[in-house]
């Protein structure tokens, strides 16, 4: 999308004489930074994924071919388990964020007294970090400091509810905390797109006697389609890669029940010195993400006119 915008920009300037080098000079710092600290590390990850590279076993180091990947596919149940949890986490989180974000965007797009303040307040968790989210929700979930204790004081529920400690509730407890922080992203993005829908479209639809539900289905949704596809994709990638919240809130536990693939990689990176295998995990995750993104854009017919 960005590319097409760039090539069709109408304010194209004729290249001034003798200035052929200028654009390269201007863009050099960005290129150097990104090649040095994004492209090169990514390439080295792929290289290491084909190596035995273990700091604690230097005598074994050397070319390993696809050994690391064989180990990952056939001998590491945690890889599959964390991948499965990642899929569940991303699916539930992005789906719910989209639904609530869309509802929220529709509401704050209406005209009403106090709209500016309401927007600022409901968008505010967007700026909060994963660790801070954890800090806040640890307080809220704790049986002695949390909401449950005060509800129990009122006689509404039993004392001692600890959602983070039980395998049955920890998933939804984490989902709720991430939802708190994640919904504003969709609300902000979709609101921006809602504002670009020409009012005349709605007026025309009203004149034709379309109900509000029909206007939403036939005017709003088609207009938002590309924004929804792109924002859900960006968010899937982001939630897949997001480590901060789960790392601090659940630590991937109890018993690996909330370990996503990147969390598994990060813990491998932090604890073990098996760089070769860690790199293979990273490469696998990158490939999965890339294929998923391409498939998603293809299947959703991104950019196609409806």
């Amino acid at each position, binding site marked *: 999308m*960005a*590319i097409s915008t*760039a090539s069709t*920009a109408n304010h194209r*300037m004729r290249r001034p004489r003798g200035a052929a080098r200028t*654009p390269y000079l*201007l*863009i050099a*710092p*960005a*290129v150097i*930074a990104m090649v*040095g600290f994004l492209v*090169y*590390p*990514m390439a080295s990850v792929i290289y290491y994924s084909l190596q035995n590279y273990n700091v604690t076993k230097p005598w074994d180091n050397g070319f390993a071919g696809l050994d690391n990947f064989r180990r990952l596919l056939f001998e590491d149940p945690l890889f599959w388990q964390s991948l499965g949890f990642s899929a569940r986490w991303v699916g539930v989180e992005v789906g719910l964020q989209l639904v609530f974000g869309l*509802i*929220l965007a529709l*509401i704050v797009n*209406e*005209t009403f007294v106090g709209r500016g303040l309401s*927007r600022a307040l409901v968008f505010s*968790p967007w*700026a*909060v*970090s*994963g660790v801070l989210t954890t*800090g*806040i929700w*640890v*307080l*809220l979930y704790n049986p002695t400091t949390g*909401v449950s204790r005060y509800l129990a004081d009122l006689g509404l529920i039993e004392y001692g509810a600890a959602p983070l400690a039980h395998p049955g509730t920890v998933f939804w407890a984490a989902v709720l905390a991430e939802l*708190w922080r994640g919904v504003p992203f969709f609300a*902000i*993005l979709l609101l*921006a*797109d809602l*504002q*670009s829908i*020409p*009012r005349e479209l*709605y*007026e025309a639809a009203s*004149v034709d006697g379309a109900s509000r539900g029909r206007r939403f289905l036939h005017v709003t949704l088609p207009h938002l389609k590309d*924004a929804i596809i*792109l*924002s859900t994709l960006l968010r899937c990638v982001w939630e897949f890669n997001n*480590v901060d919240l789960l790392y*601090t809130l659940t630590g991937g536990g109890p018993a690996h029940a909330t370990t996503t693939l990147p969390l598994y*990689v*990060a813990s491998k*990176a*932090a604890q073990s010195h098996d760089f070769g295998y*860690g790199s293979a*995990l*990273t490469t696998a995750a*990158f490939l999965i*993400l*890339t294929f998923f993104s391409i498939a998603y854009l293809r299947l959703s017919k991104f950019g196609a006119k409806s």
Partner: protein
Amino acid sequence: MTVQTAARPRLPGPVTAPGGTKRRERMRVSRWQIWVPLGLYLLFTLVPFYWMLVFAVRPRGSTSLLPWPITFDNFETVWNELGFAVFFRNSLMVGVASLVMTTVIALAGGYALARYDFRGKKAFMLGMLCTQFIPGAMMLIPLFEIFRTLGLVNSLWSLVIAETVFQLPLSLILISGFIRNVPVELEQAAWVDGCGRLRAFFAVVLPLLRPALVAVGSFAFIHSWNNFLFALMFVNEQEKFTVPVGLAYSLGEFSVDFGALAAGGVVAAVPVVLVFAVIQRYLVQGMSAGAVKG
């Protein structure tokens, strides 16, 4: 459509088209249809903030849910004893340095992308798009290796570099979009008046880019302020910790002292909340220009 939104960056909110009152009447939603769901959602958003605030300011042993009487003991504990004064300073330095580096590099590159045609431009744009799929968590090992080679482990510069690099693609796209929307005739007029290209840029283009600079700069700052994983991995001396790392440690070590935890949370929240309050007017346009176009 997003181009349009970015084209009038100084108009906050939607432009209401003049329409017949009768038709407007039919399109309007009744008050309770707005306020019931909005009120519920506000509750969901604000109760967690309120909870943190109450725990931060209420005296030890109190179980009241009202923030009265107020004490600042918890803040003194985290600021002085737990070292948040140092973490805060570190985070601030990393945040400001990332902000400056991201903005300057993105401004130069964005100008090239917006105003010049050059070989390799498409490849560069495509490359930037691809970087969006590179997971930060997974770059930990190779980045750590690089910083070790450069002798930057345990230096705050490693955080500044990593932050800047991950922030650059989106910032470049955002800024070049904004520059493209500044009419080139304005610049050309300045050249005719005898300005060099550089002077014309500073005199004519830069003042019009204020919303873009605010958006890019504050994204960079907030991102950097919030980053946890890089700071956790690349820095392991306590005098170099940033706020999120300090907060994570106090989550583990001082899990009994909820007052201190809450106060630490407030300290972590204040700068981003202030920045957010300033930029939230620009946020919707900035996001649409940056993320949707990218």
